[in-house]
């Protein structure tokens, strides 16, 4: 039995009929076509599917779409302001904080949430803050550098 959900994603309201068992990650990818949210494990281990729900970091494979009813979701597609990249995105690009790019959307969403909570994190706090997001390619060095750079920008700006 399908259920109706009303979810605001990246500022746009979506009203959709979904199966109660549909995960938020699939809702984003398949129902409304935002494929920037990736799936690497579907059991909450990898962080590839990380989004923000009402400003809180959420692994979208651990939430049903119906649980997002009435909430505001931000995905990687909603971070840039039109053509202007978000400072965290810009810092990831500048520092080559990605290789294959598969972890990147989740990593950037996590970094953004971290910097919102702690605008001036130490290296250790960055490493702790991103520990829920696995990257198989980079060894994390340039990701950490990107977050440091973004923090500087957020602070200075």
């Amino acid at each position, binding site marked *: 039995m399908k259920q109706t959900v009303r979810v605001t994603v990246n500022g746009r309201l979506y009203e959709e009929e979904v199966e109660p068992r549909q995960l938020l990650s699939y809702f984003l990818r398949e129902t409304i076509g935002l494929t920037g949210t990736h799936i690497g494990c579907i059991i909450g281990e990898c962080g590839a599917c990380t989004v923000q729900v009402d400003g809180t970091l959420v692994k979208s494979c651990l939430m049903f779409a119906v649980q997002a009813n009435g909430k505001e979701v931000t995905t990687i597609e909603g971070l840039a302001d039109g053509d202007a990249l978000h400072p965290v995105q810009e810092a990831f690009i500048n520092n*080559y904080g990605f290789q*294959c790019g598969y972890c990147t959307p989740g990593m950037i969403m996590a970094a953004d949430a971290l910097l919102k909570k702690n605008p001036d994190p130490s290296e250790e706090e960055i490493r702790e803050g991103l520990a829920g997001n696995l990257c198989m390619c980079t060894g994390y060095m340039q990701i950490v550098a990107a977050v440091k750079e973004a923090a500087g920008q957020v602070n200075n700006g």
Partner: protein
Amino acid sequence: MANADPKQYVGLATRSKEGPRLATGQGRYTDDFTEPGMLQAVFLRSPHAHARILGVDAQAALSRPDVFAVVTPEDMKRDTKPFRPGRYAAGLKKPVEEYAGAVDKVRYVGEPVGAVAARDRSTAEDVLESITVDYDILPANTDVHQAMAGEDASLIYEELGANLAWQGTLEYGDTEKAFREADRVVRENLKIHRYSSTPLEPLACIASFDRFSKKLTVRTNTQVPENIYDALRDALSLDDIRVIIPDIGGGFGQKIHLIRKYVVIVALLAIKSGRPVKWIEDRNEHMMAAGHACEQHFDVEAAVKNDGTVTGLRFKEIDDVGGSVSTLTIHFTNKLNNLSNTYKVQNIRADGYSVVTNRCPVIPNRGIGKPGMCYIWERIIDRVAQDLDMDPSEVRFQNLVQPEQMPYTTPNGNVYDSGDYPGLLKRALEKVDYPGLKDEQAREREKGRYLGIGVVIGVEPGGRNAARDMAIFPEMKETPGSGGINGATIKLEKNGTIALYLGSPNCGQAHETTTAQVAAGILGVSPDVISTTTPFDSDIAPWGVAAANSGNNFHLYDIGSIIGAATQLREKVLKVAGHILDAQPSDLEIADGVVTVPGFPRRKLTFAELGKVAYNNQALLPEGIDAGLQTTFYYTFPHAQPNMVPGKDGRVRAQFTFGAGAHVAVVQVDPRTGKVEVLRYLIVGDNGTIINPDVVDGQIYGSAAHGIAVALGEGFVYDDEGQLLTITLTDYGKCSTAETPAIEVEHAPSPSAFTPLGQKAAGEGAAIPSPAAIASAVENALEPFGVKVRDLPLTPERVWQLIKEAQA
């Protein structure tokens, strides 16, 4: 020719071309695509490590209206053919038929037995439950030593008569003499476990079939188009095959070999259903059945002079290759690539034994057999140092190939293009202040704090030679090819922009950025106006045997073909422009996409003006020149001889360029818990001329981080029944930011004498010496306890046991 400078943008960290796409969620991976009428497939997999399939009943599934196609073992046999043996199975004495899916038996947990295509994934998953398989469970074989002793619990391939499926020898020089004349012989037993790079994006495929033209199109995240292309041809008896490869979410070798099974079966579902079919692998499926790096056991002995010179190396290698014969010798023959590592030794003998087991088949993983070969060398050199009471770095210096010996031919026929190995090692020791570090270690030991220093060195081979495996299989019936061939296409478009088309896919190595850097200098434009077209499409890509995101091929074949194609395009641009501007092509200059006649500021043509002529204006084109401004160039390595094809002596160029790296690991071990903490990890690396330092650093960081994680605990664990206990990333021990140490990199390049820019590889690199560096550091830390490190991984539990064993 005037002012073409292929190096103009080389060495610069230019802005990433892939970055904006990947950082905004606009990457396009296989799962992001849909096709009209597309179905979803799921696989039925074996729950048993070893069993005979007595029967499969899929009637209930087939009769459901929402099921469009089912593949069973019977279909496999009827509708497909077995794969051809290929280069790693050429040594089988009797042919073994391997189909894409299990037919009569299952040989590992997770082996695909069947598949279902339905309207959506959850339906397909529900339907799987209704398929019943009648298994006759057989004893599982999980111990290679049992097989070596001829005590097989049961035969995995009856036709082979034993689970020891292959054995062979490589011998170079005169090892017998070296050992006879040695002052001493140093021996050790070593082991590397099963692991994987676990790409974050699982295997994925969408297949569609045009039943009238008989053209099969697959969109898949393979690293090597040829493997898919050949597999589909062999298994499905089709010729017209198109392989499209979009963005790949990480490869590391995991997406080269076993992926072909799934692509074949998904294609069969598409053929049967008449619909496009998508399949996306689950994480636990990936862990069970997408392939593992090989568990390798080594008995090593070195012939040594009392001054520390190693005059001979012999090793026996036993490989647990899992439940397939298709990669039987891959980890053994890969040792030809770095068989003598950075050392002068002239006499080497390797005896290889490949044992099939009821575990996941082995596949290429970042460096394949090379981390194992480096482990053999670096562990035995440490042992030699202990035996002679020398410093381990001293023994290394004593044995390194010297810079003045370059280019240097190794006993097995590799030609090292350039390198200063003593320089790398010296610099690494300087950077960490080795004597100071040793003092600190001694002081801290007094206080009960156990620091360890591991110093190792390894070559990083690059650019594959397709003929390598003929060194052990001279009788190979179908040659796998030789050398390497791959191409690139460059087009100056009508608006003056430049489009590149590469002959191979990439999975995160910034090929778009680096090829644009190289082409820009040759063409006289900014990298900004160059775009690289993705995805890879076999219908239009100029691809050959070296079209592989594998074997560190990119720097050689892709860069070589970009240089070739860009140079030809430049020549054509100058010819057409010279004709229009009434000047000699050799007098013209190009800068910022404008062709000028020096000294005549008004005589000039922009690339956009040229583009309009080349595609629109026949009357303005010079006689005898083809219209259009597009060139395609297929690159082959011009220095591939000698030893491109192995002769009777088995000497072969396994790879064509050789970078190197000296690694220093500093660790702290807590003897109460066995926990190892990496305090410092430094690499001084020679990657030849670096095209983009940020990209190369990224490859080094990533490969080192993985090698370190492998040494410290990442890995697959099976129980005696052949059940995999590590099917999640957490159980497997994947490292996050919290566990991964910071890695320092310094570059000390020796440009290659053989490549156009002096470039060498960067990719597998740091994954090759890093497991050895950690082993060495941990052993060094635990020296006061008398601990010897032989096996990986060094989990806290294992380290704790080692201390207990040493104390007992």
